[in-house]
Every structure is written in structure tokens, then in C-alpha cells.
């Protein structure tokens, strides 16, 4: 069972469309796996729509009447209106929408939420049991990627500046703070140290807003690799 959800402010910001791409994908993917948050987003979206569109309007008729005057008297808006109405209906019926897409790592195929659809054409970079597919999002220091860890794989203990988001998409892993299942949405801040290990292997979506710094003995030497992997 999913125990870790995006907190209320994050859901709210997502409904309003205020999060950057990397985080929007994370929340959308969680909602694809979590009915509870999906329902919550629907509610928040409805509220947001009310706020934007029906804010002042108890008296709908009067409201509309005053708006009509705006359009009728205004040539550019009239022009836009008639331009739009010159367009044909989109006759193309929308393509059948799969709720998930497939991403393959070596010989294993994973079904992941379809919000990843346009991002998973990148190559995997593999070092030992850990592979990463970096997404091309162009968000400055933020790094978004798919992380694949093979069975019994471990990531060296590290800390990081800023937050690290991990959304478990498939499989399981554990760290010092608990055991996680697909759908779990975990945000750790810059003060956390953790070293996830997976018994059976896992696929995650991760967002880091700054490079990771490894902290344990020999791992220090691996810093450049850490940079590469993350």
C-alpha cells in the first residue's frame, strides 16, 4: 500500500499548474498510481477553476451581460472570435489513450504512467547495478531521470544539497527510514543521509535540484561518478 503521498501544498500547486515540468511529472505519475491523490487533484482543480472563472459571479446573467459588451465593442476580439469559428471541428477522434507506456531496461519491460511518454527515448547510463536515464528538461540545476537498480543493488550513502524526490514506479526498496512500494512519493531534504537498497530490483523516477555528494569513505573518490550517475 502506498504510504507516502505528495503533501497538500504540492498537490495544490500541481492543480494550479505552478510546478516546473520535472515536478509536475512526478505528481502526475503519483496520481496515476494513487486513486486518493487523483481524487484530491480533481477537487483542487475544480476549486481553482471556480476561483479563476466564477470568482465574483453570483449574478451570472449580469456578469455575462457586461462581458458581452467587451467583445461586441472590441474589434480585435471580434476578429479573434471569427478566426476561431472559421476553424473546422477537430474531426480526428482522439487517439485511444493508453494509461501507461512501456520502458525497457535490458531485457525487462516496465509499464509506467503515460505522463513519461515523451521523455523515455533517452539512453540508459549504467554503472554496476545502477542505471540512469537522464531526461532532457532544461531546468537549470534540476535533474530528472529514471533510476533503475538491479536486485540487491545499493546506492552509496550520500547527502545532497536541496531536495531529492523519489517516486517508486516498480519494485521495492528500503532505506534507514522504511520500506517502500510502487507509488510511494518520497521527498528528502538536504539534511538527510540515506542509502537505499533493493532486494528484488526497482525502477524509480527521481528529481534532484542539485548534484549529490557522497559522504562515505571510498565513495568520496567516486564523486565524479556520482555526478555522472545523477
Amino acid at each position, binding site marked *: 500500500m502506498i504510504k507516502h503521498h505528495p503533501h497538500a501544498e504540492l498537490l495544490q500547486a500541481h492543480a494550479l499548474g505552478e510546478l516546473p515540468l520535472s515536478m509536475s511529472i512526478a505528481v502526475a505519475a503519483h496520481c496515476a498510481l494513487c486513486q486518493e491523490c487523483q481524487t484530491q487533484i480533481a477537487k483542487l482543480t475544480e476549486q481553482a477553476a471556480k476561483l*479563476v472563472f466564477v470568482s465574483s459571479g453570483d449574478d451570472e446573467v449580469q456578469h455575462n451581460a457586461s462581458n458581452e459588451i*467587451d467583445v461586441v465593442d472590441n474589434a*480585435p476580439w471580434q476578429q479573434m472570435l471569427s478566426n476561431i469559428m472559421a476553424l473546422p471541428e477537430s474531426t480526428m477522434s482522439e487517439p485511444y489513450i493508453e494509461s501507461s507506456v512501456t520502458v525497457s531496461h535490458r531485457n525487462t519491460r516496465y509499464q509506467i504512467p503515460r505522463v513519461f511518454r515523451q521523455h523515455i527515448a533517452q539512453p540508459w547510463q549504467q554503472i554496476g547495478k545502477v542505471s540512469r536515464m537522464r531526461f532532457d528538461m532544461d531546468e537549470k540545476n534540476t535533474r530528472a531521470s529514471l533510476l533503475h537498480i538491479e536486485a540487491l543493488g545499493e546506492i552509496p550513502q550520500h547527502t545532497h544539497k536541496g531536495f531529492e524526490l523519489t517516486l517508486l514506479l516498480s519494485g521495492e526498496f528500503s532505506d534507514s527510514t522504511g520500506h517502500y512500494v510502487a507509488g510511494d512519493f518520497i521527498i528528502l531534504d538536504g539534511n538527510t543521509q540515506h542509502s537505499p537498497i533493493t532486494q528484488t530490483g526497482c525502477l524509480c523516477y527521481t528529481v534532484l535540484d542539485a548534484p549529490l555528494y557522497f559522504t562515505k569513505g571510498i565513495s568520496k573518490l567516486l564523486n565524479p561518478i556520482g555526478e555522472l550517475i545523477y
Partner: protein
Amino acid sequence: MENFQSHLAQNRYDRQLSPPIEMAMENDNHNLSADKHITDIDPLVSAIIKVANQRDKAAFGYLFSHFMPKIRAFGLQRLNQQGLAMDLVQETMTTVWTKSHLYNADKGSVATWVFTIMRNQCFDMLRRVQHNREDAFGDDIWPLYDVAVSQDNNQDHKLTAKLLVHLDALPLAQRQVVQGIYMQELTQQELADALKVPIGTIKSRLRLGLEKLKSFLETQHD
């Protein structure tokens, strides 16, 4: 330009069976009082159904007038530029015009649907401005429609046929009213006069009939 209000009032009942029924049911769910009713359909819903079914320009003009100032305000706030705010209005309302058939009253209000279109569009525009990227991810993050809606173009026909089958299963009093309104396109007042009952009775028979039809459909879907 035509007077939207009177135009809408004249064509209260739509030819197509399913959307008005769904709407009536939704109203009933929100408000269990028998008065809350199909005749009280939100003018926005009524307008978007006319656009979807008949490419009704007056109805679209009404939607445009209603949403344009608010989309523009939202665009100014988010995109911080007159021209971009205009673009947001244009892009959003173009989608409303060309894809009105994707609106599903079961999934939420017209305002929520238009908001979704606008937010998604704005998200992509913002990335264009900030990152100079021409990508379109908004509709992947917040899908505009769901599988059930987009699956089948003939859904309405099927639904109509299903409803007609079940109409016969309704008690006579309810069947007369549902048939009169949805198939003969009579007004409630006309029905009340013809059947010599108060209009309140027509309303409650219609509500009961629709509830029963909906329950038939739900059992079928399971």
C-alpha cells in the same frame, strides 16, 4: 451578433439524448431536491453541447464572452505580457471550439474543463518563454479527456439505443414524460398541459425516470 441569452433559452432541449440526461443526473446528485432539474441546466453546459452537436456560433460566442476576460486576466498574471495573454485566450478558445465534443459533463463543470485547457496551454507557453522550448507537455500531465470519452465515436448512438430499450421498462407515467421531453422535444409546460398534471409532477416524474434509466445503464456497464 445575436442575443445569446434568448437563443439559448429557445433551444433548451437538445436533440441528442445522452448529454442532457447525464447533466440532469449530475444536478440531482448535487442537490437532492426535486426542483433541481434539467430545466435548470447551467447555460454554459447548454452552450457547449450546442457547439459540440451543431457548431452553434451564437453558443460559442456566449462561451467566448464568458471566458475571454478571465483567461486574459489569468494570462496576464502568469505570462506577464499583453500579447501572450491574447495568445492564451486564442489557444484556449480554439480548443474549446474544435474539441467541444470531448467535454464530458460527468467529469465536471464547463469551467473546470476550460480551466484545464487554459492551464495546460499556459504551462506550455511558459516553457516556451522561459526555456525557449517548443515542447507540449501540458496535455500529457493533465489529460483533457479520458479513455471512456474518447474511445468510441458512436457512443452516443449506442447510449441512445440502450436508453430506448430501457424506456419500455419505465412505469407509464415516467415513460410519457421522458419520451415527451427527449423524443418529441416538448417543454415541461406542454407536457403538463397535455397530461393535465401540475408541472411539479412532470419534474418529479422526469427525475425519477432519469434516475431509473441511469441505474439500468450502470448495471449494464458493470
